[in-house]
């Protein structure tokens, strides 16, 4: 197990490296004078010079690339925000916990709903119930996440006024006792998590339904039925087991999408996470923060994928033996 | 004919397969499929290679066709080593050596009509116009006893025997000298096997072809081959003319093969 983990970790290094390289060139190959992108053209040329100097924009591209890599890998230094002068890495590290909270809970929520929907539809395959569940899942699958967020926000937060509409904490959060603080977080996270959870549940549910139906129609299930094993046992031992293990891979594959979802959900619910920081930075043309945020997003996704792979290896011992 | 000219010679051929790709952490697992095989075919002759499945027959075929690079040994076509030529030269040689595989269904592009499949064999030829090209295709179809009505059909609309005829017609299209028949009859019913054997014998005579015939069925081999090579576990245990193989087998494995097919 340990050897497998180490191997996966080593395997992630080139991916990370290629990713950082692509990020750098993506930003630097967009046409136009980079200094002009952040500055009002009417500003004096001396300021322009200063910025060019500061960010090494006068250097040839490959030198810029090497020093950028060196600063990130060696010093975790993305430069300082244009807006408030804070180190971009600090801003991002502050914003990371809310995003990870939303993503983590949404994943749990999504797996729960997805399993109920997918397995339920598969058990009652071909009935009206299956049709209804499948249709609902298709709708959530085809839905813009942010739209669902707006709808839930409008209904539960504004219309019914049951839950807070924005932010991670209430104004009086600091004065609350520990239990109430927890409840406060919970109430604030509820809507964003459910929004993202429902949309990812559709992905998981659709996958589970298909793979379970496939497993239930396979040769070994037919053989098991012929041996007189009860339908319920077949469902649990053959259908579920064969569908659930690959689900871990699907979860790993949806992590990037989940992150994208979290970004836009944070904007809808004004959560102080990575997504909102990044959107604001893009709108304000805060170059170092945008780069830092996207790099960190990428690293977070790689780690997520790594965890999914290792989880898969724990669940399915064959993986460790192969490759 | 008469004066026989050396067409294909295989010298000390060794072929390995990697059953697993090598990575940073694992050694590749090497399986040797062909372990030093030597034989030759004269122009106008039929050589059959007989052996059980998995003995390395198909590896030899894939190597002669230029798909699997041998570890060592030479494959010479009319004296030219096919693994020691430029891409362009190899293309020229390939057109003279045409394969017919065991499974006709997977040998035909499902998205091409019979006519298109055969036409591709004629393609680089100098045909004056479309009509002449069309006539060339029809001629080939007639040669394998199919008709104009099959021109625009797709493979899945044909029977197994018909598909194999199309494969033979396509193989004949570039005017080859050597036909490599890799178990061409094994996927067919017995009655169709008989008609296909007759077709192959007929074509050989009419077009002066040379056959390398791969099979595990000694009855068919007896009716078609002049020379027979018996293969087991990657080596040829016995190479001789047909009559000595069938009447006076030297190797015990040849004998057991003959016994199991009721020919001894």
């Amino acid at each position, binding site marked *: 197990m340990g050897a497998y983990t180490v191997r996966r970790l080593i395997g992630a290094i080139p991916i990370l490296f290629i990713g950082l390289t692509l990020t750098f060139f993506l930003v630097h190959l967009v046409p136009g004078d980079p200094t002009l992108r952040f500055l009002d053209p009417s500003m004096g040329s001396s300021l322009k010079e200063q910025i060019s100097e500061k960010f090494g924009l006068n250097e040839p591209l490959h030198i810029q690339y090497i020093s950028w890599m060196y600063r990130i890998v060696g010093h975790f230094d993305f430069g300082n925000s244009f807006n408030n002068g804070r180190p971009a890495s600090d801003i991002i590290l502050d914003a990371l916990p809310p995003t990870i909270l939303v993503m983590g809970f949404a994943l749990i929520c999504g797996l729960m709903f997805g399993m109920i929907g997918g397995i339920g539809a598969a058990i009652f395959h071909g009935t009206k119930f299956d049709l209804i569940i499948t249709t609902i899942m298709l709708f959530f699958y085809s839905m813009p996440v942010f739209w669902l967020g707006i709808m839930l926000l409008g209904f539960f937060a504004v219309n019914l006024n049951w839950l807070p509409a924005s932010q991670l904490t209430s104004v009086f959060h600091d004065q609350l006792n520990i239990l109430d603080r927890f409840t406060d977080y919970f109430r604030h996270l509820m809507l964003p998590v459910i929004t993202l959870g429902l949309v990812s549940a559709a992905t998981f549910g659709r996958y589970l339904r298909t793979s379970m139906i496939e497993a239930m129609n396979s040769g070994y299930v037919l053989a098991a039925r012929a041996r007189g094993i009860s339908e319920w046992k077949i469902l649990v031992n053959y259908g579920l087991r064969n569908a659930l293990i690959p689900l871990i891979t699907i979860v790993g594959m949806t992590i990037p999408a989940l992150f994208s979802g979290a970004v*836009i959900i944070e904007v809808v619910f004004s959560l102080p996470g990575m997504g909102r920081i990044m959107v604001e930075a893009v709108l304000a043309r805060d170059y170092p923060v945008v780069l830092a945020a996207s790099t960190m997003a990428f690293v977070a996704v790689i780690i997520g994928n790594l965890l999914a792979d290792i989880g898969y290896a724990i669940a399915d011992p064959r993986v460790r033996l192969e490759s | 004919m008469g004066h026989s000219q050396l067409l294909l010679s295989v010298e000390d051929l060794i072929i390995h397969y990697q059953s697993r790709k090598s990575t940073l952490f694992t050694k590749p697992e090497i399986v040797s499929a062909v372990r030093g095989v030597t034989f030759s075919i004269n122009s106008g002759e039929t050589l059959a290679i007989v052996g059980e499945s998995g003995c390395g027959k198909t590896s030899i075929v894939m190597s002669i066709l230029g798909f699997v690079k041998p570890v060592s040994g030479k494959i010479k076509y009319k004296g030219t080593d096919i693994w020691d030529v430029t891409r362009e030269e190899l293309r020229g040689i390939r057109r003279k050596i045409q394969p017919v595989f065991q499974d006709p269904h997977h040998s035909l592009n499902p998205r091409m009509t019979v006519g298109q499949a055969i036409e591709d064999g004629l393609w680089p030829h100098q045909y004056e116009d479309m009509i002449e090209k069309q006539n060339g295709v029809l001629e080939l179809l007639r040669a394998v006893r199919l008709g104009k009505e099959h021109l625009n059909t797709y493979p*899945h609309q044909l029977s197994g025997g018909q598909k194999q005829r199309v494969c033979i017609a396509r193989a004949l299209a*570039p005017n080859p000298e050597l036909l490599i028949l890799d178990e061409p009859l094994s996927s067919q019913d017995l009655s169709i096997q008989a008609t296909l054997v007759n077709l192959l014998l007929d074509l050989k005579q009419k077009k002066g072809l040379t056959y390398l015939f791969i099979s595990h069925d000694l009855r068919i081999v007896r009716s078609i081959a002049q020379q027979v090579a018996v293969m087991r576990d990657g080596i040829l245990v016995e190479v001789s003319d047909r009559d000595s193989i069938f009447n006076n087998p030297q190797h015990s494995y040849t004998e057991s093969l003959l016994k199991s097919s009721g020919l001894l």
Partner: protein
Amino acid sequence: MVGAVIVLIIFFSALGAPILAPYDVNAQNLTMSLQPPSTSHLLGTDVYGRDLLSRLIYGARVSLGIGLSAAFIATTVGVFVGVFAGFLGGWVDWLLMRIVDVLMGFPRLVVMLLAVGFGTPSIWLTLTVLGLLAWMEVARIVRGEVMVIREMLYLKAAQALGLKRSRIIMGYILPNVIGSVIVSTTLLIGTMILVEASLSFLGLGVQPPNASWGTILNQGRVDPVGAWWISAFGGLMIIITVVGFNLLGDGLRDLLDPRSLT
């Protein structure tokens, strides 16, 4: 085929927008600002008093246009890369597939933000970036199929005929992958419409006065409860369209399943 019907209806209403739209898309009428649905304005009006139904019909042109073009770009790049990697194999394949891994691991919206954030948001930038960042899935599917086809006997037979590589690719490989390419392109159109909506919703995609469904939703965000009709109908439009493309894609998959061909 419900999917095909939905897609056709949306497609033709986008084409016939000038005839179908009851009002001029950009005609402002501040006295009619934020009117709820009524007989004169079936789906209500927006802040500037513009007819929502007309704007949604015209928005279909932009959203559908971006979805289709982005999916087309993505498919072209994906097929090219997939055939290249699958057919050549070796280190070319290795490198291309690592790039695919990396790009697929990147959260799509984040890369979009990165790219759009450093350029000037516009329809053209949106659809180019969208297209160029969505080809990976197609490339993976095509590569997988090409690797299978490469080992098929009919390809060996074609190579034995001494055919040129270009002929083998055009005649033997592409026709056999086209089925799954059509399916993934159809599904991709839906995804592209969703991503475009997200981007425009954030104000980084299509810029006013051009209206895509995403920009309309962005305007609805101001007051999702008081002016619920803007968000509600804008979102429904997107959902119906994307459901249409997903249904169509699934239907085509069943229809073009290679297993059903044999």
